């Protein structure tokens, strides 16, 4: 069992393997869906999966770092909403240049994240609570700005919203490109930079990381700043996507992001998993939703039940396969 792993040995094979299993299961899921609902495997439907979840992917990438370091960030959904709100207000009311707006919003997200990171590290507060309060704060600030939704009509944003980049017989939105770039950058950072490796070390054992002389304080603050910046960037993508700022945007997205990262093979206790897993996790969640939309006969409650059931089956198969793999290589409880 993950939380009760003896000697840490059981986990050995699992992270790498879990990621593979996720990918495999995703393909199975899509295959089964394709058989059941013709048209599901159409190229544009697959690309829609990316278009619709680009913002979630960006958030999940930021969340990956947080989770890899053994923390959690519940504020991402509301930071996203806050950035759409701030962007919309700046554009609509103050007519600030859109590029400046984007820069400001990113700085705001990173700043909020860094502040939470600093609280978590320097005051030894629990990430869950700090980011939960951060979630209330960001959402609350949205309402203070305005309780209405604000339309964005800035030409650049509209352009980004309308542009369709041809790809594989379909098209993707600029948001997808941004999200994939962010993912690629994150993979590089996680595996080839000192910062990335320190994140893993902190997740493995924070005290050890400190004793080994790693810059724990700086890294932890940076991790949450990154997550905040990713949430803000996701907000920008969301603004491209929706062309509006609204305090009720992206409610519950933090759970989606956490679920995506965990399904992608990361351990919430930190230290194990891959940033790339975020993509597979996001795609799994997106596929489940697409399947349900294609089915089109489920009532609201059946939708929930089916999502829950699919999640369960997914986790179950993942777990059983991973357990089998771990059993083959090393000892288990």
């Amino acid at each position: 069992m993950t939380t009760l792993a003896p000697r840490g040995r059981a986990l050995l094979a699992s992270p790498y393997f879990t990621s593979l299993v996720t990918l495999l299961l995703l393909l199975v899921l899509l295959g089964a869906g394709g058989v059941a609902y013709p048209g599901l495997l159409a190229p544009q439907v697959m690309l829609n999966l990316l278009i619709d979840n680009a913002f979630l992917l960006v958030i999940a990438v930021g969340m990956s770092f947080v989770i890899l370091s053994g923390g959690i960030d519940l504020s991402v959904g509301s930071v996203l909403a806050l950035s759409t709100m701030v962007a919309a207000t700046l554009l609509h009311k103050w007519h600030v240049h859109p590029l400046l707006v984007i820069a400001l919003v990113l700085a705001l997200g990173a700043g909020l994240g860094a502040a939470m990171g600093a609280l978590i590290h320097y005051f030894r507060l629990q990430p869950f609570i700090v980011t939960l309060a951060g979630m209330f704060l960001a959402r609350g600030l949205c309402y203070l700005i305005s309780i209405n939704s604000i339309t964005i009509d800035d030409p650049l944003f509209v352009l980004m919203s309308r542009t369709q980049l041809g790809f594989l017989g379909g098209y993707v939105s600029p948001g997808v490109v941004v999200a994939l770039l962010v993912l690629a950058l994150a993979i590089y950072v996680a595996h080839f930079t000192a910062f990335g490796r320190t994140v893993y070390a902190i997740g493995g054992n924070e005290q050890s990381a400190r004793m080994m002389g790693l810059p724990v304080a700086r890294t932890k603050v940076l991790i949450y700043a990154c997550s905040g910046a990713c949430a803000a960037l996701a907000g920008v993508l969301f603004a491209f996507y929706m062309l509006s700022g609204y305090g009720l945007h992206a409610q519950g997205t933090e759970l989606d992001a956490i679920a995506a990262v965990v399904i992608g093979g990361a351990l919430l206790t930190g230290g194990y998993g891959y940033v790339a897993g975020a993509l597979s996790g996001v795609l799994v969640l997106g596929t489940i939703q697409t399947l349900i939309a294609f089915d089109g006969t489920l009532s609201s409650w059946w939708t929930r039940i089916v999502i829950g059931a699919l999640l369960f089956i997914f986790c179950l198969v993942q777990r059983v396969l991973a357990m089998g793999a771990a059993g083959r290589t090393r000892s288990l409880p």
Partner: protein
Amino acid sequence: AKPLVIGFSQVGAESEWRTANTVSIKDAAKKAGVTLKFADAQQKQENQVKAIRSFIAQKVDVIAFSPVVESGWDTVLREAKAAKIPVILTDRAVSVTDDSLYVTFIGSDFVEEGRRAGKWLLEHAKNTAPDGTVNIVELQGTVGSAPAIDRKKGFEDVIAANPKFKVIRSQTGDFTRAKGKEVMEAFLKAEGKKINVLYAHNDDMAIGAIQAIEEAGLKPGVDITIVSIDGVKGAFEAMIAGKLNVTVECSPLLGPQLMQIAADVVAAKPVPKRITTQEGVFPAEIAAREFPNRKY
């Protein structure tokens, strides 16, 4: 002929009202022989956009949806237009730059509902308390949601006409009974007997508040006049028991109308841009008579 295929994206199942709305649409589709693709968005706009994209990919004949929010629909509606799929809005409007992105909007007008509630109150007060000041407490819906904003606005517009009407407390009850009761308790403790009128943005909050009023030893509907919106069954029961004074109807039964319009749109018949549902105001006096007719 091939049956008509409608893709419908519902907000969610957050209230009885919404459920009644869903049932009405499903039933009407069945009756009209329409194939309905139903998608529940669980209160998230991004889910609705996803659903609409998947409807476009599935090449449905008509797309209909109750938008979670007003803004943010330009892009996806443009895609629908490019795919030559007509779009019908139900229940809530959208604000888009280009009106041709949707064919028509069927639904109630939240601001109007607020106004009606206000008007009824002004009339009522004329008879019962012709000259005293009227202290109103307000139970708002979820902060930021369209019905909450509009119902507040409509109501305020109307009562502004009479300076004796004052909203002394206004707090959100999240459209739920539990919250409505909790907030009302606090109002009662803070303002006590000063409260003359309760205006609740939906029936559920009003029902919760009625319990709080009773527990405080006051008589709901008598000591405190209660005005609410929606007209669900529970509200009628409360009115029959004399605990609620009036409910402004906000009809969820849009199904038959939607199917009719969808058929017209596909048949290229002209349809009006705005179709307001027929809605009434039900004061307590006619509740018992009206009760057997209620469907939700």
